[in-house]
């Protein structure tokens, strides 16, 4: 998907503010990249945090932690 407006709508699950849609195309594309990066980093950070939690959690509560985090 290359149209920056469509990417913004998809990433935000909403209609971007009119002022944003009035920005130059390269600025809208850069904004879409920033949001997509933030989503990727968030997912990666969560994955790493889950792994680190399972590694650091004290043995007596490891079972419950695994059950809650991993289902």
């Amino acid at each position, binding site marked *: 998907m290359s149209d920056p407006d469509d990417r913004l709508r998809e*990433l*935000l*699950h*909403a209609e*971007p*503010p*009119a*002022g*944003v849609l009035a*920005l130059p195309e*390269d*600025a809208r594309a*850069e*904004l879409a990249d*920033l*949001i997509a*990066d*933030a*989503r990727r*980093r*968030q*997912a990666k*950070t*969560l994955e790493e*945090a*889950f792994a*680190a*939690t399972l590694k*650091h*959690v*004290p043995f007596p*509560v490891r079972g*419950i*932690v695994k059950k*809650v*985090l991993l*289902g």
Partner: protein
Amino acid sequence: MTTAGELRKLAHGLDVPLASLDVLAGLDAATVRELRRQISDALFEADRAAFERVAALSKAIPGAVAAKLTQAVLPPIIAARVAELLEPARAADMVGRLSESYVAEVSLRMDATRAPHIVDAIPPAKIGAVARELARREEWVVIGGFVSAVSAAALAASVAEFSGEQLLRIGFVLDDVSRFDEIGDLLTTSQLDELLTAAAASSLWAELAELVSHLTGERLDRLAARYADAPPSVRSAFDAAVEAGELPPATQAALAG
């Protein structure tokens, strides 16, 4: 709130350097605020299930273990999103066990208006300590945003931590200007003297004008009384600022009674 202030909040929410948002510098503050809200909602919903599991975990294990784990492995940006899902009592317990530095990092990335029940549950003394840490980091916009969410007791605990210069800088970016008089009631004589001196020493004229324009009645009278007693060097700096067009004459007139 100015565009610069809103962009700073957005940078914190995206966890990116402020400079990476230069492409948005031409937008007005309301547009950036709306965009920030949309991004915040989208990032929260994108991983809601995972945030819910972390929140559930904090309930399933002892508070001390949960706090230790949080600080050891949970980056503040994730903790800020999970915080919205915590029960207030659990959040207050956790915050009480975390370092001021970590809570300040979380506060930077949290939109106080999304979790008022959490902010409300945190003991005033802890909020005061975190406010002091945020002021040390010169995070005026973040503090200005939290002022609208904190209780009267937490506001008092926070204001007690600020110097006159810090109060001027925070007042300039306050989201909720209706609390200016409440803040004015809390200021000590020493803080009033400090803020007049800081305005003169650091040319914080726009900040002072903002404060004076929102103070009413007794609060303004107290500040005017301190201005009347201010050292000649401070008063002459005010005169020079008016002459140079940096301080609105109306502000000085309000202080002169």
